[in-house]
């Protein structure tokens, strides 16, 4: 797309929009970790940011707010759509190990995929995981333990 076209379609951002826009790369990477698909990650990121621009909320951290929105979009909306086709060009290096991990993660329920992506990809601690997923802190440990165990089993089958 021509840069002049991009400038015409966008406009100067106010402080609130700038704070949301600044999170785009992090949200896109999270979306990639969740979906393993570029098109789906772009759709998810765009929808999450759009909800931020339209929202009347004023959260302390737009990063945490957008993360929650992205996770909810992943859990709710992609469940209704058809399974995404496997990408010809993977979103990772494409090594055998990475392909096996991708396949193993694909076997897990979406809740466990989200939990692992947040814990291992985003590096959230138990408190942040509980707040993002809307579950008690005490529950985070048991669910994370179950998700890791499920991944080990699935990865063992793929490796």
């Amino acid at each position, binding site marked *: *797309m021509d*840069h002049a*076209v*991009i400038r*015409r*379609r*966008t*406009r100067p*951002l106010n402080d609130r*929009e700038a704070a949301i*826009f600044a999170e*785009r*790369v992090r949200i*896109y*990477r999270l979306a*990639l*970790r969740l979906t393993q698909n570029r098109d789906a990650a*772009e759709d998810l*990121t*765009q929808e999450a*940011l759009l909800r931020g*621009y339209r929202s009347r909320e004023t959260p302390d951290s737009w990063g945490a707010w957008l993360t929650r929105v992205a996770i909810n979009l992943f859990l709710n909306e992609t469940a209704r759509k058809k399974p995404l086709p496997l990408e010809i060009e993977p*979103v*990772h*290096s494409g090594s055998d*190990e*990475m392909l096996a*991990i*991708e396949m193993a*993660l694909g076997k897990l329920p979406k809740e466990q995929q989200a939990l*692992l*992506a947040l814990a*291992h*990809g985003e590096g959230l601690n138990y408190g942040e995981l509980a707040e993002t997923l809307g579950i008690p802190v005490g529950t985070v440990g048991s669910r994370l333990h179950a998700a*890791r165990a499920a*991944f080990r089993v699935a*990865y063992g089958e793929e490796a």
Partner: protein
Amino acid sequence: MNELDRFYREMDRVTLTAEQDARFAPRRRWSWEWILPVAAAGVTLVMLALAQRAGGELSPRPMPGIGGALPMEMVVRPNSKESSRIDDRPGATPSHFFAGSEMGCAPAVDPEGASS
């Protein structure tokens, strides 16, 4: 879980293209790209409504029963009952028509009155 950490870390190398940046930016609320066509359509609709209200006819109306629009010169519009009753038999004339009128008009020529 080191393999998971490595897996997710690979996505940290991803950067956004200019197209993606544009897609994730807020859109203009007002843009001449769509304001002008919408305004032009609105003005056209208002002018059409005003013209019809003033009694003007902007397009030929199809004759009832014909079912389709004909060129104006092909559409015969009877202006009165008489015009639809024109006798086109050979020899017939407008005076003949009016002489035998069912409209209650006095005959133009009264053969009996002429003989009396």
